[in-house]
């Protein structure tokens, strides 16, 4: 994940929990404790991904369908939040224009860490059918924000989106969350 959004190290106050993680990590056998705590935290985090209610184009309709009856993303703990301050995942659903790109970037910057991005559909992934002969569509949202999971399709079915979210859950479960957090806090980057 890019850390360009973070100010230089000197300006950051390291939280006590991150100090504790650093000390624990240095202790003999501390890594085992840390990993156990981490896997518990990751298990909890992966089962409550709260994405931002944010739709750009066609894929947003399939996203809504995934939230609604029959597919019901609530089952896997995905509850849409209307403000980036409460969200920890952004689902970029649909084509993003050059005019819209700074706003997507700002929304991503407004989200608290740890944050994830799912690029839904061909347009968000690479420009899709709007790649050629086009002057207004961004050729992939990963030119603006870092993407964790790409969901292919035009538009992807709700099942495909669910698969994408499950992949993101897998990624979160494997993440060295506490260590990464302390490194980011110290301004060292992930």
């Amino acid at each position, binding site marked *: 994940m890019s850390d360009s959004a973070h100010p230089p190290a000197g300006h950051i106050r390291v939280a006590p929990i991150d100090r504790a993680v650093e000390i624990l990590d240095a202790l003999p056998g501390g890594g085992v404790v840390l990993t156990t705590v981490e896997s518990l935290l990751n298990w909890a985090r992966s089962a409550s991904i709260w994405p931002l209610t944010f739709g750009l*184009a066609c894929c947003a309709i399939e996203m809504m369908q995934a939230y609604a009856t029959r597919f019901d993303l609530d089952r896997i703990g995905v509850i849409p939040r209307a403000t980036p301050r409460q969200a920890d995942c952004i689902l970029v659903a649909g084509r993003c*224009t050059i005019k819209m790109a700074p706003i997507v970037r700002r929304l991503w910057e407004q989200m608290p860490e740890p944050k994830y991005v799912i690029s839904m559909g061909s347009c968000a992934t690479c420009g*899709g059918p709007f790649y*050629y002969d086009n002057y207004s*569509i961004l050729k992939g949202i990963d030119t603006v924000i870092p993407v964790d999971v790409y969901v292919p399709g035009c538009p992807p079915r709700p099942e495909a989106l669910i698969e994408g979210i499950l992949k993101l859950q897998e990624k979160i479960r494997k993440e060295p969350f506490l260590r990464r957090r302390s490194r980011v806090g110290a301004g060292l980057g992930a």
Partner: protein
Amino acid sequence: MALRTEELILNMGPQHPSTHGVLRLIVTLDGENITEVHPDIGYLHSSVEKMLEHRTFAQGIALTDRGMDYLTALANEEVYILAVERLAGIEVPERARYIRTILLELQRIASHLLWLGTFGIDLGAFTAFLWCMRERERVMDLFEAVTGGRLHHVYFRIGGVYEDLPEGWTDRVLEFCDYFLQRLPEYDELLTGNPIFKVRTQGVGVLPREVAIAMGASGPVGRASGVAYDVRKADPYEVYDRVEFDIPVYTEGDCYARYLVRMEEMRQSVRIIRQCIAQLPGGSIRARVPLSLRPPKGEVYVHTESPRGDLGIYMVSDGSEKPYRVKIRAPSFSNLYALTEMMRGWKVADVIAILGSVDIVLSDVDR
């Protein structure tokens, strides 16, 4: 001493839970009253008109699905191929015309259901959203059985449709029609007679008839303001002149009237579908059309009634295999500008109700 007041400028969107896409509204407020609304559009401009100039006539169909109003993919395909067929003078087989009409009306039901669901969310009735999506899922299944796609179909072809209907599909459609008509009274119980819903919509956001005509508002927005104009009746295409249906017209021009128009339109769509299935002839589904179609030099304007209103295409051919110029007349664009008139003088909380009742799709506004 007089109290000093000043105007407040409020920015809504482009990321807002109820702007139905990426619309940005710059609202000028006097206290809580709206003095002016300025919609800022272009956040979803896909340059589809320019792109169509670089695609052959057959390739353009896939682009109209995505680049234009994405909720009514088939209606976009319809207006595009109608323009090409009129340019090239292609005669479409009867069966294909009936199939197209059935699918267009199913599309209208799907689109209105999504509108009803999101309008329900805007006004705090979350149940409506879940119910509408349940019904919409069944329409999606019907689409998938025929076209293979849920949202973007690329099913209509110049001179017909891609493939014949699968076996037993018409029975499934009739079954859906029965099911749907049973469900509609439930919506009436949930919303039509709901006192909270009525207070928030009745008399709110009135669009007078003259203003609606001057602003070019069409579709359900126009018909709720007393403009009895429906392209399906005024300038029939496909087989709309062979089926019986009524156009619901209300004169109130408020959010509630726009809601009632759409509810009635869904019932009328079911009526059209049933008649089409009863009359469905056999035979060929596609006329023989050369792969690299070169229509003669000329220009054509075709308009159809998409679920959002009067959707038109102006197409110029220079005799090559690509159109020289395509101009899309989008219904949402005109309806969006009628919005500025509807909102003036209302409270800021009514912005959501009025915006929801107009049913704009930003992909249609910006193209």
